[in-house]
């Protein structure tokens, strides 16, 4: 990976399917999974003579996204035709925005990692465009499904501000969070709702100029984004180290072999012959529409994190981890509502729960007990019914057995002894057996107190309530 000598420079182009019922330029449905060529009409099939009509809702969603990313909403923007021939592109051109996009500039703030400051990743632009259909190849023929043709896409282009594969993934997660939050996309990468092209270059640390970059296409999961960048950065460093030049080219991620490979030049056109779409007038956004949308904006992820931190007394890093994954935050909240201390709950989720999830490789819902049970377990700690260590053993057992907190603690006999009489009896036994040490302590060797505590705990099989043990011992030794 990157080392002291080289650093990676990464920029992302994210295509997000927008959460609308109808397509960008016609009234066809956008449902995922309809039978082939079911959601089509003359317009999205590019019959002769048809014309596009812009979906107003799409524009509003893009403005919401622009506002959520601190972008400048351009009140005048223009659609353009991007020409290339491909069977899944019925018009022979894609209607997109080119030199006059709907949103320019802006940034996305990433929560800090472990320590350090939040990071700002600047955006170049956000624009609207239509998706193409899908080619399906069989042994005897190539088939075209136009259900996806004309489905609205938002392209969000970042500046090359990212430096590591992990950071690229953080950016994607944050962007997805924003898109889901403002209702612009469902964020489902596995259904292709988010697709990502990555631009990667490598340069000597301290250099200010950018190296030649490659563009990696076809990345449809966080894992692939990370792996593809790792692979590509290493490849480029090796090339440069070997004295070779990096060719400015487009690569395709091969998820089977986990490598990137250059696309043949035939696989992409290089002259798209852009010109303003003559069938659509310039998109004029009335300023009061922007104001109206601004007034209706929901609480954004960054604001949510800040409020979380304040409400629960957590650090921004802790909040970042909890809210970075939707199900984690929800799990946390379901523990907190059982009046478990937020700090305790946060620590538990970030350590024990995450560990269980990572070790089992299962989704959270299957890897760990229901949050109600975990909450019950933590309440036992808070009520001094069990020790923290006991809770950890109980939790591990609960993950395996699926049993409840009470039952597990009982089965394993982990309940703490707070009864003063039993503790006093154990203390008496220890003090009787260690007469010499008692004399030394009473002569002034205070340090021996810890030894007595350990001996009493041992005598009680680790179940003595440490607080009570301390009190009783101190009294008896003073006696």
């Amino acid at each position, binding site marked *: 990976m990157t080392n002291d000598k080289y650093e990676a420079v990464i920029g992302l182009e994210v295509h997000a399917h927008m959460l609308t019922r109808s397509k960008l330029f016609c009234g066809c449905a956008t449902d995922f999974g309809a039978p082939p060529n079911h959601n089509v009409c*003359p317009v999205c*099939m*590019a*019959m*002769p*003579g*048809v*014309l*596009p*009509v*812009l979906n107003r809702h799409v524009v509003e969603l893009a403005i919401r996204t622009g506002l959520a990313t601190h972008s400048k909403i351009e009140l005048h923007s223009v659609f353009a*035709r991007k*020409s290339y*021939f*491909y*069977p899944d592109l*019925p*018009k*022979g*051109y894609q209607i997109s925005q080119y030199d006059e996009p709907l949103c320019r500039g802006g940034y996305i703030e990433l929560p800090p990692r472990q320590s350090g400051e939040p990071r700002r990743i600047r955006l170049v632009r956000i624009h609207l465009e239509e998706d193409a259909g899908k080619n399906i190849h069989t042994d005897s023929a*190539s088939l*075209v499904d136009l259900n996806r043709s004309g489905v609205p896409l938002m392209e969000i282009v970042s500046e090359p501000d990212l430096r590591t594969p992990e950071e690229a993934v953080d950016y994607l997660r944050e962007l997805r969070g924003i898109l889901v939050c403002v209702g612009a996309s469902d964020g489902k990468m596995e259904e292709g709702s988010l697709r990502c092209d990555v631009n990667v270059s490598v340069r000597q640390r301290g250099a200010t100029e950018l190296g030649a970059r490659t563009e990696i296409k076809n990345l449809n999961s966080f894992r692939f984004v990370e792996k593809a960048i790792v692979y590509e950065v290493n490849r480029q460093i090796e090339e440069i180290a070997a004295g070779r030049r990096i060719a400015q080219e487009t690569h395709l991620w091969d998820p089977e072999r986990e490598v990137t490979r250059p696309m043949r030049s*035939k696989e992409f056109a290089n*002259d798209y*012959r*852009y*010109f303003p779409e*003559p*069938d*659509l*007038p310039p998109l004029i956004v009335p300023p009061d529409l922007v104001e109206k949308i601004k007034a209706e904006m929901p609480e954004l992820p960054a604001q949510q994190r800040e409020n979380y931190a304040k409400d629960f007394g957590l650090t921004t890093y802790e909040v970042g981890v909890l809210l970075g994954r939707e199900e984690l935050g929800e799990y946390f909240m379901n523990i907190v509502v059982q009046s478990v201390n937020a700090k305790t709950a946060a620590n538990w989720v970030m350590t024990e729960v995450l560990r269980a999830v990572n070790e089992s490789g299962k989704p959270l819902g299957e890897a760990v007990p229901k949050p109600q049970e975990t909450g019950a377990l933590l309440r036992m700690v808070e009520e001094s019914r069990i020790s923290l260590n006991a809770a950890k053993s109980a939790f591990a057992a609960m993950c395996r057995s699926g049993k409840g907190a009470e039952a597990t603690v009982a089965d394993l006999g982990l309940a703490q002894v707070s009864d003063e009489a039993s503790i006093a009896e154990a203390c008496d036994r220890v003090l009787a057996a260690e007469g010499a040490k008692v004399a030394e302590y009473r002569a002034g060797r205070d340090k021996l107190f810890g030894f007595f505590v350990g001996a009493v705990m041992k005598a009680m099989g680790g179940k003595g309530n440490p607080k009570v043990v301390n009190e009783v011992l101190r009294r008896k030794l003073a006696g």
Partner: protein
Amino acid sequence: MGSDLNRLTITEARDRLRRREITSRELTRDCLERIAAVEPRLNAFITVCEDEAMAQAEEADRRLGQGDAPNLCGIPLGIKDIYCTRGVRTTCASRILGNFTPPFDATVIEKLRAEGAVFVGKANLDEFAMGSSTENSAFGPTRNPYDLERVAGGSSGGSAAAVAADECLAALGTDTGGSIRLPASFCGVVGIKPTYSRVSRYGVIAYASTLDQVGPFARTVRDAAMVLRAAAGADPRDSTCSARPVPDYERALTGEVRGMRIGVPTEYFVEGMDATVERTVRDALKKLEAMGARTVEISLPHTGYAVAAYYLIATAEASANLARYDGVRYGMRASADNNIELYNRTRAQGFGAEVKRRIMLGTFALSAGYYDAYYLKGQKVRTLIRRDFERAFESCDVVAAPVTPTTAFRLGEKTDDPLQMYLSDIFTISVNLAGLPGMSVPCGADGRGMPIGLQLIGPPFAEEAILRAGDAWERSSGFARPAPQL
């Protein structure tokens, strides 16, 4: 036969239909009989819709019987074969769409259907409306009803010839650089190219999107005004279509031109134009003056750049508009082993020479590194031309000029010289670039009896002004179009 109802104007036919003196079935049958009689020589139609037309006529008669039928109810019209018509083959005069039957109607067709109009057939044109003579048709050229050895003009030659030859009472065409006005002039009928955005383009097969406009052909200005009124108006399916209300154009036809200022552009009377055309147009202007109009000399200084700008903009837009004809979803498909071969063969076999020439011109004009020098510069010239007209309309109400430098030329005369063919449009192209309404009104004939048109041009949405001038001329000039001897 003998009734010759097909020779009626729409106004006459409408009144007689409403009075139940004739039926739409009789009227339509007369048109169909005329079509059967003259088509072998004329070739104005690619597809004749006999059964559909008779069914529409029957329905129209039912509506007329109930009273309160719209203007065009029961009126037989010809439709340029560039309009998508549900269930009726729509070819655009191209092999590539030779077998294409649209599952939908163009908005204009839908509107006329709702009026109760009868569609007798799909009229011939230059392939994808690219041409000035209707010789670039995969279905053979349309001939001029006044001289079968001469062209009908283009690209809407079939529509113009059909109206001139009384095969229908009016017809729809499209005008991108003169494609309504030129054939109207060559065939001696009225042709209107309305303001860009006045009529919906939805379902009209696109040639050059910022220039294409829908318009009518008819035998009188009043008839043309009626068809235009029915066709025009807002369309939620065309974002470039104007929401302005459509005036009742017939009410503008007062017959009065007193005080009207008619601008005569110096640049439209050029060296090398046919002397008879110039004299006839100037005579028409004198008559308008005698009727109380005032002519003023005006200048449109950028006229000389119009043809060049047009052939950059129109071809650039066409190169993208015609990319959809790829053999994948509809129309002709050549047999091939892979994508690239499929495109190459389908398009090589499906398109004619002129269409290929314009696709190549336009592709070149949009190519990386050439965009600024060609497409963008063309758009800048367009702005200058629009300003020329804005300035001119400060001192006049309408502009009058010839439609073309010559009358109809002989078949084959210009087919080997595309540039000469392109120059047929020098007086019509500026109007498209500026998005203005323009009209050709018959104003005389040359020594061979070939018709000559007077072009009237108005400011944006001033259709009423040019219609009033054209109608006044038509009524007062004493000029009557001779019937073609077919």
